[in-house]
């Protein structure tokens, strides 16, 4: 049948589902990302630079001596942070800026008029970027970890148990960071210069997540012993915590957070000892699941609301 003879009304109109949009976006982004090979090489080099820089920073500090210092080299501590965040930094940033890129390409108006969910676009970007950065993680961190084997310990899992206990926590970390990425991406529908705010958010999560120091350190201030407990309930924080405990200390019986460290410090400072001994793995998984769901729901609502506000304010196509 010729296109000229086909009436628009002969086909029952149906909108694409968010899953169709997500899948199409993942496919498009993977093809496009693969075309920009130089960009992948730059991202690879950037990851290696980070690992080297943090490795040497840790070496220059040596073994920490503070009350909340890890009982292994600071080099390992920072290397594990840098390695863990290789999985979540690039995909977070690319997702947070993806709607701005659509607007800059001039496709936002078309997508909106076709009821294409901005959430699907962002989730699609997050998934495709996650695949890319997982590949970069595997290529950069495993050789690095293998290289430092013997010299400073072994960051690769020793047992299948360590590996399989880590997997769900990393999965929930992915979900959590996806929701944060979607929230930041949705903000770009209203505020166009989001580079700074996206980086501030990343920095804040890293601080809270124990990228630079042990999360138990938060208990050093007055009666804030509960602060590490609250923070560790965030999947990205418990993911980082487990990554370090399982792969550096090879301790799968660890509780989140380590209240012994906090109690020792409190006793030293004359505080009453606590009856709370930290969360075990099972509770942590349950909390991670609930918190991830809540954040995803929040991100979904925020994306919907901000899309409506952007339509009202007329900023949906601006970049």
């Amino acid at each position: 049948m010729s296109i000229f003879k086909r009436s628009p009304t002969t086909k029952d109109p149906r909108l694409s589902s968010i899953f169709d949009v997500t899948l199409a976006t993942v496919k498009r982004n993977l093809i496009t990302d693969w075309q920009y090979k130089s960009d992948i090489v730059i991202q690879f080099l950037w990851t290696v630079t980070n690992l080297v820089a943090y490795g040497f920073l840790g070496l220059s500090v040596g073994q920490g001596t503070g009350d909340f210092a890890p009982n292994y080299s600071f080099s390992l501590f920072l290397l594990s942070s840098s390695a863990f965040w290789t999985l979540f930094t690039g995909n977070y940033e690319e997702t947070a800026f993806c709607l701005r890129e659509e607007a800059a390409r001039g496709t936002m108006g078309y997508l909106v008029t076709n009821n294409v969910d901005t959430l699907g676009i962002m989730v699609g970007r997050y998934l495709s970027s996650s695949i890319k950065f997982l590949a970069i993680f595997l290529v950069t961190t495993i050789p690095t970890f293998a290289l430092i084997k013997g010299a400073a310990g072994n960051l690769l899992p020793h047992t299948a148990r360590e590996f399989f206990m880590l997997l769900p926590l990393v999965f929930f970390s992915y979900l959590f960071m996806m929701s944060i990425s979607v929230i930041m991406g949705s903000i770009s529908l209203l505020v166009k210069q989001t580079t700074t705010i996206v980086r501030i958010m990343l920095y804040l999560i890293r601080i809270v997540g124990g990228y630079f120091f042990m999360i138990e350190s938060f208990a050093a201030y007055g009666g804030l012993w509960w602060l590490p407990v609250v923070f560790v309930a965030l999947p990205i924080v418990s993911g980082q915590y487990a990554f370090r405990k399982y792969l550096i200390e090879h301790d799968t019986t660890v509780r989140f957070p380590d209240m012994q460290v906090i109690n020792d410090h409190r006793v030293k400072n004359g505080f009453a000892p606590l009856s709370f001994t930290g969360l075990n793995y099972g509770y942590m998984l349950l909390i991670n699941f609930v918190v991830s769901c809540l954040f995803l729901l929040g991100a979904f609502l925020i994306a919907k609301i901000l899309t409506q506000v952007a339509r009202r304010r007329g900023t949906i196509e601006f970049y």
Partner: protein
Amino acid sequence: MVRSEIIVSNGLIKEFPTSFTLFSKKKTQKERKKRVLNGISFDLPKGLSLALLGPNGSGKTTLLKTLSTIYSPDGGEAFVCGYDIMKETPEVRKRISFVSPAMDFQKKLTLKQTIDFFVKVTNGDMALAKEFIEELQLDHLWHTKLETFSEGQKAITRLCVGLQKNPEILFADEPTNGIDFRRKQVVLDFLEKQGRERTLVLVDHDPEVVDVLCDKILLIALGGTVKGMVDVAKLQSEFNYMYDIMLIPKGTIKKKEAEEIWPRYEMIGGMCRFFASNRSEATEIHERIIQWGKFIDIKTSGISIEDITLLWLKKHEEEFEEKMLAER
């Protein structure tokens, strides 16, 4: 509620915030907003296509984007394909498509990969897209990356993306912008045939595009109000002009003198503007002005479709006022 008109707009209002500044001196809501559409009302019967015309900044593109649900209105109501654009937005979006000249694509993707993406996210029809691309002789570029495409080829790709969904209404902002002369004819022929099947709502200053594709013109004035709605056929029969010749006289030109030079004219202040339907008429007007001799300068230009519409409205001013009074 299902209506017989394809588009109905009743007092549509759209305002944009003037700034996001936290420490703005503008205190009231009214001060912080700029009204771009100020009560746009019109009906477009089914089977007809519409051109939105008006000076820059009058709100044509804003109206196009509001009707196509990119922007949500701040007042009034509008029905597209019988559905309320505010309350039944998904139903409207199932039936429309929007094409803008600002729309660009991932340059590293091929034409096929690009179309494939848009077909999937809009639940479109790949077969329709292929037919369109073949019809416009772009099928040899099917596996070529868009980074090598000319502006005209991109314009065709945009139209293909807009039409692959087989919409009831295609909202388009300057759809033939950037397309070379030969392909423009092909695209116009194609859209003209499409116009029989679907409604086109265009923003375009090109008289040829409006003439070929549209049945009605909605003229919007600065300030976002409707100046009038005109039938293109009536317009063309009464004002079939292609050129205007602006005469700047030494001193003033009298009406009688102007009439003697050429009967179709308009006095603008001390100047006079003559209208010609073709090239030979324009040459004749030039010769007559030179013969008359009392002038400083003559300027000839192609006449815009807005000008012709304004002339038509001016001629039919009384008729319009009566009609509007009757409607009130």
